[in-house]
């Protein structure tokens, strides 16, 4: 790649790490590929709408090791197990529930390492930042749920980044055995000060009949960038409910790819993005129906304020012979300002005939008729705008399984539209 991103400092730090030789080689391979991969430009189809200028011209380094447990995101009234991942490094986890285990890549035996790396290999794409992730992760973590284990407590992966001009990379593999069931919440936050690039990858594999509820909340504010991917592979009759939130920061880009690999697999993929100020938030999703009889339902909604920009690219790909696929995708957007911009690209690529597929996309501002209804009932225009904006995404929040997550997100998202004026959100909270 070009010298667009200056990583010399990061490389010299990485080289000084002590780790097994095979791991060092694997990371070196990632670094080599990073250097070979061209820097995305506007002509690179997958980055067409997402300028990466804010990543250039910076001497990127790696964060100092942290011993203290940063606070990050906390859920009220929820008996969730909290795993803190600070600057990409997992802090001492407490006791895990029966049937749940956590393996560090650096501590794998040969057999484990082979399986782990194979899983990571299967989840990757030819994506520049994927190679950077491989090169700069401190370690990778394999969260395993044994077959037929129903984990009662939710697992909260609390990612925190702290440091200036640092690359904070993480890689987790969540593997559910046959019939296993778990809820995993991934929250991302960053310290108030300092520029960072969070490069976070999540790989999910669900064996037959496994069920997972997944939340992926990119909540970093300030001078934070976040780029990464979520991949999932669903085997026979597996079910994944994955919910995404993108707010804050300078630039956020998440590539979500779900593969239906076993018949009868079911996916619900929803999300909201709410860029404000000069933020850029970009979700690329791709759902692969590789076998017959699978179902996908996808809804993403965005509200773009100020001079912010959002990008949504949602692809549904029905492979040859994936008959009886049902796939629906919907993307709706509100533009709240003259300077705001949205680029959306809902795509269908279909190679089987006996399928039901549809997508829809809309772009508009707040509805005049709805605003008048509020005003005709004495509610001020400003409060009506906040309530309507929030209502637009609240339809998705309402459908979340876990009240604790709703309780975290509601005030956080509602205040975004009110510019910190609490009197405008008082009827929402």
């Amino acid at each position: 790649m070009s010298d667009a991103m200056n990583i010399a400092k990061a490389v010299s730090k990485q080289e000084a790490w002590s780790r097994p030789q095979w791991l060092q080689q694997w990371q070196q391979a990632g670094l080599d590929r990073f250097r070979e991969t061209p820097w995305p430009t506007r002509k690179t189809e997958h980055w067409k709408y997402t300028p990466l200028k804010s990543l250039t011209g910076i001497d990127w380094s790696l964060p100092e090791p942290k011993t203290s447990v940063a606070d990050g995101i906390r859920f009220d009234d929820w008996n969730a197990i909290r795993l803190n991942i600070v600057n990409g490094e997992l802090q001492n986890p407490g006791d895990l529930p029966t049937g749940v285990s956590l393996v560090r890549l650096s501590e794998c035996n040969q057999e484990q390492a082979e399986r782990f790396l194979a899983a990571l290999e299967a989840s990757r794409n030819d994506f520049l930042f994927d190679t950077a992730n491989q090169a700069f992760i401190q370690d990778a973590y394999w969260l395993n749920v044994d077959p037929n284990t129903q984990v009662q407590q939710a697992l909260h992966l609390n990612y925190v980044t702290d440091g200036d001009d640092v690359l904070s990379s993480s890689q987790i593999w969540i593997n559910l055995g046959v019939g296993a069931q778990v809820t995993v919440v991934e929250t991302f936050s960053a310290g108030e000060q300092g520029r960072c690039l969070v490069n976070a990858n999540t790989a999910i594999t669900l064996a037959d009949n496994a069920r997972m509820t997944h939340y992926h909340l990119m909540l970093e504010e300030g001078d934070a960038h976040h780029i990464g991917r979520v991949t999932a592979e669903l085997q026979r009759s597996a079910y994944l409910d994955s919910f995404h939130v993108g707010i804050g920061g300078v630039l956020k880009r998440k590539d979500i790819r779900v593969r239906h690999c076993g018949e009868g697999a079911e996916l619900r993929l929803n999300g909201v993005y709410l860029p404000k100020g000069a933020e850029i938030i970009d979700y690329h999703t791709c759902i692969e129906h590789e076998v017959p009889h699978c179902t996908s339902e996808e809804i993403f909604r965005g509200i773009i304020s100020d001079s912010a920009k959002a990008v949504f690219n949602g692809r549904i790909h029905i492979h040859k012979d994936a008959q009886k696929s049902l796939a629906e995708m919907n993307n709706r957007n509100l533009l709240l300002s003259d300077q705001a911009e949205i680029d959306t690209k809902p795509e269908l690529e279909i190679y089987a005939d006996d399928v039901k597929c549809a997508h829809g996309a809309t772009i508009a501002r707040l509805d005049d008729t709805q605003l008048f209804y509020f005003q005709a009932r004495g509610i001020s225009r400003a409060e009506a705008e906040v309530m309507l904006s929030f209502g637009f995404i609240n339809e998705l929040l309402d459908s979340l399984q876990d009240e604790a997550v709703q309780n975290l997100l509601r005030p956080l998202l509602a205040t975004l539209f009110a510019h910190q004026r609490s009197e405008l959100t008082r009827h929402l909270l």
Partner: protein
Amino acid sequence: MSEEVKQYIKSEYEAGFTTNVESATIPPGLNEDVIRLISAKKQEPEWLLEWRLKAYRAWEQMEEPDWAHVTYPKPDFQALSYYSSPKSMEENRPKSLDEVDPELLATYEKLGIPVHEQEVLAGVAVDMVFDSVSVGTTFRQKLKDAGVIFCPISEAVHEYPELVKKYLGSVVPQRDNYYAALNSAVFSDGSFVYIPKGVRCPMELSTYFRINEAKTGQFERTLIIADESSHVSYLEGCTAPMRDENQLHAAVVELVALDDAEIKYSTVQNWYPGDAEGKGGIYNFVTKRGIAHTRSKISWTQVETGSAVTWKYPSCILKGDDSIGEFYSVALTSNHQQADTGTKMIHLGKNTRSTIISKGISAMKSENTYRGLVRMNPGASGARNFTQCDSLLIGDQSGAHTFPYIESKNPSAVVEHEATTSKVSDDQMFLCQQRGIDPEKAVSMIVNGFCKEVFKELPMEFAVEAGKLLEVSLEGAVG
């Protein structure tokens, strides 16, 4: 599928005959001398030669686009001939239709084109383009009486140089894209239309393009200018003989609708699609674009059944406030055909409106892609777009794809996009069969129903024609 059926399908391309006339074809190859030769043959003014050369030099620097969802061996541009004309048109150029070689006119008659003004379809004026030249245009006098100019563009260069100079390349610049640049360098004939202020063109205008000669490409160029408050409806049709090698057709169409004008542009594209094995057929790489000024309207309707590979996005630049753009499309692919087609609606002016209705039908082993762009620029306050893309799959070997790009920078602009995919359902088929309708007829009825919204936009005679064309193209796709 039995040999008989295959044979049957193959024979169904009714326009696949060849006309035996002696042609003057320049040797294959492309360089500046060839461009000078083409220009000299047409006795073009110096400025136009320079214009062509500029385009050629730009083209040389460009790369063939590869983003479309189509695969084909890249054409060898040096193996093609860029100019071919029947000899009878070269020497003693005929001064009227009566003097044209009857063999040429017979070609058009055989294709069902009215070449004599007294014929039934008398409401349509026709310009007949044969390889690189126009062989004749009907109703010129009648149109002239109304102030309408309808003639081959090579003639317009001489007769109306000011208009041509002003508008040629004004909508599709020479270096717009690879094929547009190629066309700008070597374009041969096409139609030129000018409708004066306030005139409603008294009849339908149409151009019929025919490729006849082997190893040539056709590079027509069409320019339509509708002056203020005028109205015109224009239709183009096209066919080519069946040949085992691929032939290239790279056209450019430019439309200019000045204030309050309306242009309706319809296409029935039936280039030879290749045989059941995917051998032969036309590569149809076309750039069509219109610019709509204040309160004007540009409406594209296309029925695409032919060509081996189609790459085509008739577009509207909605520059003037309150201007309207429309795109109605039926694209049917069968056998090994590939189509990547759609539109661009660029909203610049206030309260501009656009509608996109696209119906894609994929049968056999074909690939059918809708690709469209809707862009709301910062100035497009109150603009609206509605897009509906539906795909119908027939059989499990084909592909149907939808790739819309939607961009908005104006909060008061409203964009709505919907797409669906379905197949001809067993229930529909059973109902028809139970009522005694044979499967092929049933499919063509269902497909016709699926396309209704688009067909109703076509001029009457052509709607019937388009329906028949679909039926023929679908032969052998079921059962």
